[in-house]
């Protein structure tokens, strides 16, 4: 059992008024300190290399996707947000997705698809905003997902750097 002994207040402390004035002066000084509010739509969120936004598909220089529709990201996705149908093409890389859909309402931005991808074809972009009027509109197809390398470069560099670190420190090497 703990017995808490309250401090006996003297008459000056029992007046409370000096402490009230101290509190008032504190709040008054706070009024002139710098605001920490971010004016969101005008002032966007800070985006760094590690920002893990919505997944996007990497588009190669010749205009085709890097994706070969192997389905590993589909399997890795814990939220079952990815749906892929593959198809053969005449390109040098002989497979590409006919249908690649990510349900953005299901996506939890975990980044497992990015880790699972053997062809470095899907990356977590720095795009964070998601808004729409219908649920169907939030299922993004290839046309909405493809991004040129320049748009994803920061994240690509980051992912390669992290992967290199793992490779270099590996005991099997």
């Amino acid at each position, binding site marked *: 059992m703990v017995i808490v002994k309250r401090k006996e207040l003297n008459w000056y402390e029992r007046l409370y*008024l000096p402490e*009230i004035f101290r*509190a*008032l002066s*504190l*709040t*008054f000084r*706070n*009024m*002139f*300190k*710098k*605001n*920490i*509010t971010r*004016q969101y739509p005008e002032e966007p969120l800070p985006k760094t290399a590690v920002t893990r936004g919505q997944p996007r598909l990497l588009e190669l220089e010749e205009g085709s996707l890097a994706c070969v529709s192997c389905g590993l990201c589909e399997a890795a996705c814990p939220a079952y947000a990815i749906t892929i149908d593959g198809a053969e093409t005449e390109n040098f890389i002989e497979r590409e997705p006919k249908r690649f859909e990510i349900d953005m309402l299901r996506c939890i931005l975990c980044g497992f698809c990015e880790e699972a991808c053997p062809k470095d074809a899907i990356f977590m972009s720095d795009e964070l905003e998601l808004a729409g009027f219908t649920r169907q509109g939030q299922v993004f197809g290839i046309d909405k997902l493809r991004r040129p390398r320049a748009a994803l470069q920061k994240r690509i560099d980051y992912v390669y750097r992290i992967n290199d670190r793992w490779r270099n420190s590996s005991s099997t090497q």
Partner: protein
Amino acid sequence: MNETLVTLLKILLIYGGLINVAALMTLAERKVSAWIQFRIGPNRVGPWGLLQPLADGVKFIFKEEVVPEGANKFLFRIAPMLAAIPAMLTVAVIPFAGEIRIPELGTFDLPFFGPTELGGITTTLSITDLDISVLFILAVSGLSIYGIILGGWASNSKYSLLGSLRASAQMISYELTLMLSLLSIVVMTGSLDLREIALAQGTIGQWHIWTQPLAFVLFVIATFAETNRHPFDFAECEPELVGGFHTEYSSMKFALFFLGEYCAMTVMACLTTTFFIGGFSVPFWPDAPWFVQLPAFMVKTAFFLFLFIWVRWTLPRFRFDQLMGLSWKWFLNLALANLFLTGLASALGWF
């Protein structure tokens, strides 16, 4: 005819001003609270969010009105009016400035009245100058408690009932302190007329805040309790009573309660100004014209209005037994002692 027109004009001006100040106070409350908490506050509607009260008003009007099942419909509807009207009535006797001389405007042919001479009279900037305006204010502002009690009781909700019970107990307790601290001013001035009380404090040295500091502190604290403001806002008390007496209210009825609260705050700030810091008197300029006196009065009142908000975002809420103990064990005794000493000094002819 001339007098009637002038009075009508004054009513329009002063009530328009009061409602506007009350509306702007809702904005000021949010702005000041934001600044104190390192935020920015409403800034989307109009420049610096100045039109926010207007947007709020429009929103309130279009909200659905919900009358709870089992509520006493008549009392439920009438309670917000009872809360708002007394607070607005009291502003009728507050002297905002000294004498105004309206120049001769010539003769006009008015509808219904025929040719009338307009202007050429001297008036004062208060809707009416009662001999007993202090009594009037105390009597009428005491009525606003009915709105809160009826609102809480007629809602058929336990939270509302508890809120209104607390509010009534609190307001009755603090009304005593409020009146007793004012009485010492009345004893000093020898008048129940607010204008004379204001005129008796022509220079800074004569301000009653210096001669009656204890009464000033008691009065200011009692006004916080009377208007149900922090740290005495037991009538609302969000964490304990959801919303207190206005839990069940929605739409414009809810807004009316708040209009009443902010009007009461404005009136109380006006009263503190008039009683303790010289009313409309301008420091170092004893016979200033009315258009200087009015801004002086407004600046002084604005300080006390700011104090209401400032204290709200500084102090935590009392416990209910502490509130009652504070009132009955301390403030009442202090106010009585102060009144006794003032009476004694007055009888001995010290002032």
